[in-house]
Each structure stands twice: as C-alpha cells, then as structure tokens.
C-alpha cells in the first residue's frame, strides 16, 4: 500500500502569516467598527451606548476625548484601517515586502497598544470612569500586537534563505 505523503505546512519564514493574518484582519475589522462607532458618536454629539456598565458618557465628554482637535476615536479608526490593510497585505501577498510590512504592522500595533494603555490609565485615575468600548479596543489592539510580533519574527526569520520548504515527509 502506497503511503500517501502529505506536504507539511509551509514554514512561515518570510512567508504567509496563515491563520494569524486572518485573525489580525478580523480583529482590526472589529476595532475599526468600534472606533468608527465612537467617531460617529463624537461628531453627532450622541452619547455612546454602554452595555449596562461603564462611563462612556463621562469619558466621551472629557477633554481627553480629542487630541489637538482630532477625536481619539478617529485616530483609532485610522489606526485600525491601516492595520486592516497591512494584515490583508500580509495575508494575500505574503512574499511581497514581507519584512517591512510585518515590521510596520508591528510598529503600528505597538503604538496603538501603548497609547491604549495610557488612555486606560487616564480613565482609571484621572477621568474616574471606564468606557467598555475603549477597553474592548485596547484588548483588540493588544491582541493584534501579539500576532504581529509573532508574524514579524516569522517574516524576518532565516528560513527562506535556508531553503524555503521542508519538502515532504
């Protein structure tokens, strides 16, 4: 009986981020939806809806809701759209400029995570109210950071230079 040989998964080295890319797309999409909603709420003057808890109204009404006239929610939307685009690039064109794109993705996610951490500190210790939407966004961008870090390690590994694929079992 001939044994059917199965190709191994292509190693990620310099290659496709696989499920991680798709996960980043989903997470960035969710983040864009949240920050898009908060941006609309900001410009419409409507108060963000809280799911039974939190102080969205307080956070939204605080002076920290905008930086130099730009709503923080809009900054978040821009970030998530960039992350979404770069994640899509990594997923569907994994060999094109893999390392620079992965590094840029990582850098943006790092900046987003650090700034989200700062905003959460403000909510806790300065504004005195927590906004569930903002916490959700912070969790999303942190998750993207983890995946992006993983991706950048793979995308910049030596594997491609050493032989690309491990052939067959």
């Amino acid at each position: 009986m001939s044994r059917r040989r199965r190709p191994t998964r292509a190693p990620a080295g310099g290659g496709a981020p696989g499920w991680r890319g798709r996960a980043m797309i989903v997470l960035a999409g969710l983040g864009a939806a949240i920050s898009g909603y908060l941006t609309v709420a900001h410009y419409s003057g409507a108060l963000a809806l809280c799911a039974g808890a939190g102080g969205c109204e307080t956070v939204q009404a605080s002076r920290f809701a905008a930086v130099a006239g730009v709503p923080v929610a809009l900054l978040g939307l821009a970030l998530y759209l960039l992350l979404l685009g770069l994640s899509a690039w990594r997923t569907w064109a994994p060999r094109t400029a893999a390392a620079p794109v992965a590094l840029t993705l990582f850098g943006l996610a790092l900046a987003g995570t650090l700034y989200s951490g700062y905003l959460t500190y403000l909510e806790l210790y300065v504004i005195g109210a927590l906004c569930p939407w903002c916490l959700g966004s912070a969790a999303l961008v942190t998750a993207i950071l983890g995946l992006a870090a993983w991706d950048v390690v793979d995308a910049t590994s030596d594997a491609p230079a050493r032989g690309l694929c491990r052939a067959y079992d």
Partner: protein
Amino acid sequence: MTRSIQQKHGRRPHSRAAERRPSRRWWLAVVVAALAVVGGLVLLGQAQPGATAAAVATAGKVKGDPAAPVTIAVWADFQCPACRLFALGPGRQVEERYVKDGTAKLVWHNLAFLGQESVWAAEAADCADAQGRFWDYHDKLYAEQTGENRGAFGKDNLKRFAADLGLDQAAFNACLDSDRYAGQVKAERDAGRQQGVSATPTLFINGQKIQGAPPFEQLAQLITAQAAAARTRGEARP
C-alpha cells in the same frame, strides 16, 4: 526537490535583498518610532490647558479652565445651609469629576440675602479674591458655617479665617473694615434677582436653571449632555 516545490507553489526564489534579515536596528527603529508617536500624542494631550488633574485653575471667582465647554454658574449665600451642603457634596464631586478634567468650570456669584452676616461674608470673600484666594476662603466659610446671623460670620471671625489661611492680614482687614466690596455685593444680589434667582443655591448649567442642590448624578447627566451639545455646536475646545 526544493526547486520543484517552489514551482508547484508558484513561488519565485527570493533575491538576496529580499531574504536579508532586518537587523536589530530596524527593530529598534520601529520601537522608537512607536514610542515617539505615543509620546507625541501624550504630550499633545497634556499640553491642552487644564489637562492635568493636579491643578485647577482659578481666575477670580472662576474655578476651572475658562474655556471649558460647560459653565456652571452658582448663585449662593455663605450662610445658606443648602449652599453648604451643595458646596461640600455635589459641588466637590463636580469639581473632581468635571472641573479638573476641563469639561466644566464653576463661576461663583454672591447672592447675599440672608442678613448682615451674609453680606459681610460675601465682602470678606471678595477681599480674599483680591489676594487671589477666593476659593480657599469660600471653602473656609462653609467649613465654619454654624447658623444665620449669630456671630459666626462677624467681622472678627472673618478676619480670623483670613489669618488662618495665611492671607495678608493688614490688607484683608483694611478691605473688610472699609466695606470696599459692599457695593459690588449689592449689585451682584440685584443682578441675581433680575435673572430670576430667588433662592439659593441656584445653578445655571450653560444657562439651564436648577434651583436647590441637586444630587451629583443629576448634575453629571446635565453636564455630560451640555458638553456633548457644545461639542456638536463646535464650541468645545480640542
């Protein structure tokens, strides 16, 4: 074998440049760039007036950022027990929550209508204001309030409060003894009555009148609604 797999997968062999592994410098550059962006955003946010929680700006009888989108005008009498309850309760909560973060500012108006000691207390507070200490004196008066026109706010006690706060005693005493601000206190009371203020405390939150000392939750609701409305009108500062 490797080559055949590359062909099967439709991959082109990598050029040397594409395969070059980014050096640690690139990692460092990305991390530094991210930190710089975040630092810039934090500094921009901090640079906005009133953004620091520690200091609440006071300009005369205004507490908070003068450009705050929500103005809470407080009409009160220093002898009024309900005003004391407001000042020590919801008023302080509003200060902590909305004045420190620049959402709202408090604007004090004397409505000295409960007797002579109300007038003297208001004059004394204006004398303290002349030394830039209105709000400290305001807090002291409410802390010392014990009853209406029973000597608590006699001139001797008012001078003692100033001494307790470390004000320039000579200047304060001269100001109080000369009734320098008597006309101003009376004018303010008349202005209040013309605006329909007939009881204390009376608040105007961006013009919306509230009589009595409302619970903090009600105030919070009104302040956030007014802040949102101001933002919609484009009046809110960045």
